[in-house]
């Protein structure tokens, strides 16, 4: 079942000097439970697409169709935790803003925190957490509002390579376990292949779809293990050649 349909999405920016076509002719469909990664050269407008999907940015034309019962959750770049709130209060932010801090919802958030190894840190402040834990808190904050689709905007960009691998494994497992559909924007090709079912490769500005790959690994498992798959290098090579890196 499709949870999100995008047709001919287009975005132009207006500046004093110029009119910039950032996104053009972008169409795709997200099915329930799918994990889609969007990769492309930096500055091509990947994040703009996500921001249009969750309504943070206005589209110039085209259609974004979301069924009425489907909710979208956004996970921003970095972890964007509020240092002055403890872990629980950070996670309750979304519910607080919409006046939905009910006993039931709070219980749900507490359960998520316990399930994902943050039980002892519920009242800790973000300063006292590791990068990986912060990322988990950030994800739980988004999950707290019970979205069906998660939009991840370069979620691991602030982490060093080692924790990046571990955290992407973590986040992937949580998303799968909670049975969410997800769209992740990244500039890291291997991250995209290791996590997604489908990788959308974008061209340079104006950003259009260059190719869509269905990732069919021999032994689909967790992101870290997927990197060892025989076909991993094959996809990496394909996508690498697709992206115009101007070095």
């Amino acid at each position, binding site marked *: 079942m499709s949870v999100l349909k995008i047709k001919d999405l287009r975005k132009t920016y207006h500046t004093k000097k110029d009119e910039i076509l950032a996104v053009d002719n972008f169409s795709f469909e997200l099915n329930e439970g799918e994990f889609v990664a969007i990769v492309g050269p930096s500055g091509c407008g990947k994040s703009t697409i996500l*921001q249009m999907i969750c309504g943070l940015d206005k589209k110039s034309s085209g259609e974004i169709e979301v069924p009425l019962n489907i909710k979208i*959750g956004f996970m921003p770049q970095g972890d964007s935790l*509020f240092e*002055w709130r403890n872990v629980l209060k950070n996670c309750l932010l*979304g519910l607080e*803003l*919409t006046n939905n801090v009910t006993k039931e919802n709070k219980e749900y958030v507490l359960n998520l925190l316990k399930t994902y190894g943050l039980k002892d840190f519920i009242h800790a402040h973000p300063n006292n957490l590791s990068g990986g834990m912060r990322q988990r808190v950030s994800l739980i904050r988004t999950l707290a509002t019970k979205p069906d689709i998660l939009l991840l905007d370069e979620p691991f960009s602030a982490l060093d390579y080692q924790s990046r691998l571990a955290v992407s494994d973590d986040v992937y497992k949580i998303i799968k376990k909670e049975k969410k559909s997800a769209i992740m924007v990244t500039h890291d090709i291997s991250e995209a292949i290791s996590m997604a079912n489908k990788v959308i490769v974008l061209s340079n500005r104006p950003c259009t779809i260059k190719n869509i790959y269905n990732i069919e690994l021999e032994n689909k498992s967790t992101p870290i293990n997927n990197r060892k798959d025989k076909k991993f290098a094959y996809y990496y090579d394909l996508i690498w050649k697709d992206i115009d890196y101007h070095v």
Partner: protein
Amino acid sequence: MYSKEHKDYLKKIKLHNLLVKISQIFILVFFLVIWQFLASTERINTFIFSSPFKVFETIISLYQNDDLIHHIWVTVYETLVGFGLGCLIGITIASILWANKFLFKVFDPYLTILNSLPKVALGPIIIIWGGANATSIIIMALLISVIITIISVHQGFTNTDENKIRLMKSLGANKWQIFSKLVFPSNIGTIMSAVKVNISMSLIGVIMGEFLTSKAGIGHLIMYGSQVFNLNLIITGVFILCIVASIMYYGVVLLEKKINSKWD
């Protein structure tokens, strides 16, 4: 238990800090002793340069005959009122300008001009309009602190992390929620440093005001001293002002520490 190496390290730090303290006190004592020595041996004219003992005598006699506490209180009172109003009005205006970019653009050049204008130039106008009273002095203090508060706090507000604002919007926050739950709390640091500058600014404004017109206050003592050519009184005034200024400044620092400790 710590290793010997660590203990030595701690000792070294303690010794270093002690040395700093001792040197600080030494400078003050050295200065006072030299000053008193030069005065006692009549190498400097105490009529013009005064002396530590004379300052001390002046303080005592002011306390006994001239209601020293009242003068200090007037200055502190005027400073605190100007400071409080400056912070309150400054932060409020900064918030309004953050919420409305159009207003900010309109007022930006006026703020810049007012900020670069030496506020003392407005003194005579304020006194003629407001009268020769404490209100005029408070307005003076307010004017001096409010503009810089608006500018620095507004700057902090507009520099709020764009990703966090995006997150708030994606969670359905309205403008007031973005302000009260993100922009304001994330700028407590900026606000506190503006507040720290403000306490000194307000004192400058008050002393300026008291120079221009006053019936009491430390500025009044200094001004009176200069009119009757009583250097003892002037230097005593400056000395008391030093103490009052540092007490008020450290009061604000203490307040800042208390607010910061609430969050960790």
